[in-house]
Structures are given as structure tokens and as C-alpha cells.
């Protein structure tokens, strides 16, 4: 357990010292602040526009970081041979994989907190009031990004970084189209319907983590929704980690 934490901390330090991360986070902060401009031309709907623009920018950049770093994480270790440093020590591959996951999740969490802080300050300065729905939406966005970390690492355990980034990206798009897929499935002929429903249940339903539309109406999730989403998150992340570890355990370096 302690070893996982040591690896996680090492991953965290190693990743947050990357200049590219600063560039992406800095740019995202710029875009979040720029939502003020969009708000100013919205015919009195500035709060609405700042909320949707800010949260959307946050989500997009968080997922960019996640895909970019998540799919490179294991590859970088093997490519730069730094994996020899860790795996030859009293460390099992499971611990290594979990440590990497926790470390990157910490990086994502820290970036999200920074972005969220800027967003909340901006909203507060503009309106003097931040609805709790905003915090829920940010929290669920972080959960979504953590799930995508597990996705990226799973693909990264057997595919090249570029293909695993593409797979993760595709999975995110499918995960956010689940509502549409379900709606189409209900209208389709039986065979196509079973196929689409299979897709609907097999892929992670990222729309569960999307509370960003409700923020505009200051609707906080109800407790059942929060609990089911949390259970879903834990179960699906565990599934993805298990799959990734199963592949990673057989990898040779």
C-alpha cells in the first residue's frame, strides 16, 4: 500500500514538472477567463454563458490532459527505460500500475482544482453567488476524468501512445453520446436495437457525470443520483484497472 503511494507521488512530481502541462493548464485558465467576454455580449444572460463556457472549457482541457498524459504514461516509462528503476525494486506490477493511476489522478485532480478555483472566483466576482450545483458539476467532471485516466492507461498497456489516445478519444465521444445512442436504439429495428443497446451498456456512460447542463438552472443532483454515479464510477474504474493490469502483468520490458 505504501509502495503504491510512493510510486503515485513520484508520478505526480514527475508529471507536474512537465512544461506541456503548464501550457495546457495555463491556456485553459485563459479560456475560462475569456468566457467573461462571451458573457458580455449575451443580452443579459452572462451568468448562463459564463457557467456553460467555463465548465465546458474546463472539461475539454481536463480531458485533453488526461488523454495526453494517460496514454503516454506507461509508454514513457518503458521507452525511457525508467521502468527498470521501479520494477526491479520490491514492487509488483499491480502496485506499479495502481501507483501510476493514483499519481496521474492526483495530477488531474490538482489541475481541476486550479481550474475550478479560477472558475468559481470568476463566477463569484461576477454574480456574488455560486450555486452548489457548480461544485457538484466540477466534482463529477473530476470523476469523469479519473475514469478516462483508467481508460487511457488500459489502452496504453498494449497500444502505442497515438493509437491509445485515439481509442480514448473515441471512447469519450461514445461515452458522451450514450443518450443519443439510446434514443436511436429505441426507434430502430430489433437487430440494430440490440446492437446499439449492447454498445450502450458496454461502454462507459460518461453522460452520468455530466451535470454541467443542470448548473444553468442551479439544480443540484439528488442523493440517489450521487450514490449511483459514485458506485458506477468505482465499478467501471475497477473494471478498467483490472483489464489494464491483466495485460500489463504479461508485458515484458
Amino acid at each position: 500500500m505504501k509502495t503504491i503511494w510512493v510510486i503515485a507521488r513520484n508520478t505526480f512530481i514527475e508529471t507536474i514538472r512537465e512544461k506541456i502541462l503548464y501550457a495546457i493548464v495555463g491556456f485553459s485558465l485563459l479560456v475560462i477567463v475569456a468566457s467573461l467576454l462571451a458573457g458580455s455580449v449575451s443580452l443579459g444572460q452572462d451568468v448562463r454563458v459564463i457557467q456553460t463556457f467555463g465548465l465546458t472549457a474546463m472539461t475539454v482541457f481536463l480531458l485533453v490532459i488526461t488523454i495526453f498524459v494517460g496514454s503516454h504514461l506507461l509508454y514513457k516509462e518503458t521507452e525511457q527505460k525508467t521502468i527498470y528503476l521501479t520494477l526491479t525494486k520490491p514492487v509488483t506490477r499491480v502496485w506499479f500500475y495502481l501507483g501510476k493511476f493514483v499519481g496521474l489522478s492526483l495530477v488531474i485532480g490538482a489541475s481541476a482544482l486550479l481550474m475550478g478555483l479560477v472558475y468559481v472566483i470568476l463566477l463569484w466576482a461576477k454574480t456574488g453567488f455560486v450555486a452548489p450545483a457548480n461544485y457538484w458539476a466540477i466534482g463529477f467532471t473530476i470523476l469523469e476524468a479519473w475514469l478516462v485516466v483508467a481508460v487511457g492507461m488500459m489502452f496504453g498497456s498494449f497500444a502505442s501512445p497515438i493509437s491509445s489516445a485515439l481509442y480514448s478519444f473515441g471512447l469519450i465521444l461514445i461515452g458522451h453520446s450514450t443518450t443519443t445512442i439510446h434514443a436511436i436504439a429505441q426507434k430502430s429495428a430489433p437487430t440494430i436495437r440490440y446492437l446499439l443497446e449492447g454498445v450502450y451498456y458496454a461502454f462507459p456512460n460518461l453522460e452520468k457525470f455530466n451535470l454541467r447542463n443542470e448548473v444553468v438552472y442551479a439544480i443540484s443532483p439528488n442523493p440517489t443520483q450521487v450514490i449511483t454515479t459514485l458506485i458506477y464510477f468505482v465499478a467501471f474504474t475497477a473494471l478498467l484497472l483490472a483489464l489494464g493490469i491483466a495485460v500489463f502483468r504479461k508485458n515484458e520490458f
Partner: protein
Amino acid sequence: MLRQYLICQSIILYAKALSNMLKLQKLTKQFWLGSKPFTAVNSLSLEVATGQVFGFIGLNGAGKTTTIKMITGLLFPDSGQSSWKKQDSTSVESKKKFGFMPEHPQFHRHLSATEVLSYVGELFEIDPTIITKRTKVLLKQVGLADSAKIPVRNFSKGMRQRLGFAVALINNPELLILDEPLDGLDPIGRAEFKKLILEQKAANKTIFLSSHILSDIDEICDQIAVIDKGKLLFIGSPKKLTGGKKSLEAAFVELVR
């Protein structure tokens, strides 16, 4: 009486030495080059007794690194096993006693030498105060005391090699596994490194080192194994290989041919 006692003692010591050893049993590893199988290590068996400096000699591509990777668990053998004190050498318990230095040691780019050592130390679950103490001593020992705070990405090849050696020693290991420790170093660096290894030998460590530079081996090793195309050709003391007449190099070339 005394004589009997001494014999008894030496038998106990010998038994101890035998039990504390690294033992490879019929290790075999195949790679696939396209559709053709290529046997990197072919049914390799050997034993390293405690306190020995064991030289593992072969040409480039003879299977030295593959063998070492199988010992440390980076590669999985197709068949056979490697054990340490009758335990699987890739288990966490065994690896706690190992110090390993890979062929061209690489470290996380953004860490400094001190951070690398404390990271590895924490992986061994060593007490932080001991880590700080050992880090200072080791960095001084390998001559990196002045570069302790510089990010490792700015290190030269020789400096990385030195840091690799320090990393291998952080847990005060019982068995040191060094893969080509002298490769790519300048003559002065080589001399210094040999000194470091001999210091460890004096500290009664078991050392398993691979090399293709025979002159160095001659000076350091008690026991050598020669491997070519994945097969063990010779095991014994360097003197046994040379037969007291030829140079080690000539004997080696003869053996491999």
C-alpha cells in the same frame, strides 16, 4: 580438537554460502523475430555463492542482459526458474535484498539525484532518516556530491552510471546485479568504478556482473561464466579458463570459436 572445530566451522560456512546463493535452473527464453524464433537464452543453469564476485561474460547479444532481466523479473522465462535463497528471485521478498544496475541506467527526467535515491529508498521501505544519511554517503562515494540537486536529465552518461551504482546500493543489498557496469566509461571512470566494485567486494557483498570487457573481469572476478548464443560454455575461476598460460582474452576467443 581445534582442527576438528575449524573443519566443522568451515563446513557450516560453506553450507551457509550454498544456501545464500543465486541459482538459475535451465532458464530458457525465446524471442520471435518476425516469424522466426530466436533463442536468446538456452537452458542456462548456474549458481552464485555468497561473497563471490561472479563475472558473466559473453559477446554482445549473447543473452547476458536477457538473463539478468529474467532474474529481476522484467522478462518471464519460457521455462526454467531463477531462485534466491530457495525463493523465486522475482518475488518481492527476494528483490528487497537485491541491488540492480541496468545496462544504461535511466532516471525520471525531472528528478534530482537526491530525489531518485529517496524514491528508490522509499520503494525499499527504508526509514527516511536512514535514506538521507545513506544518500549523502553514497553520492559522495560515487562522486556525485556536487550534482545532487541538478535534474538528472542534465547528467552525462558517466554521471548516470554513477547514480545507477548509488541506486543499486541504497538498500545495502546482499546481492548486487550489475549489467555492463563498465561499458561506455572512459579509462579513468573505469578505474574508479572497479575500485567501487572492489570496495563492495571487501564489504562481503555477492556481486553478479556481466561484461564483455575481459581485462576488467580478470582483475575483479572470483568466478566466471562464459555464455554464447544463449548457451553456457564455461563456468569456473578465470585461472581455470586460461590454464595459467594464455591471456583471458585468447582463452575466451578460443572458447567461443
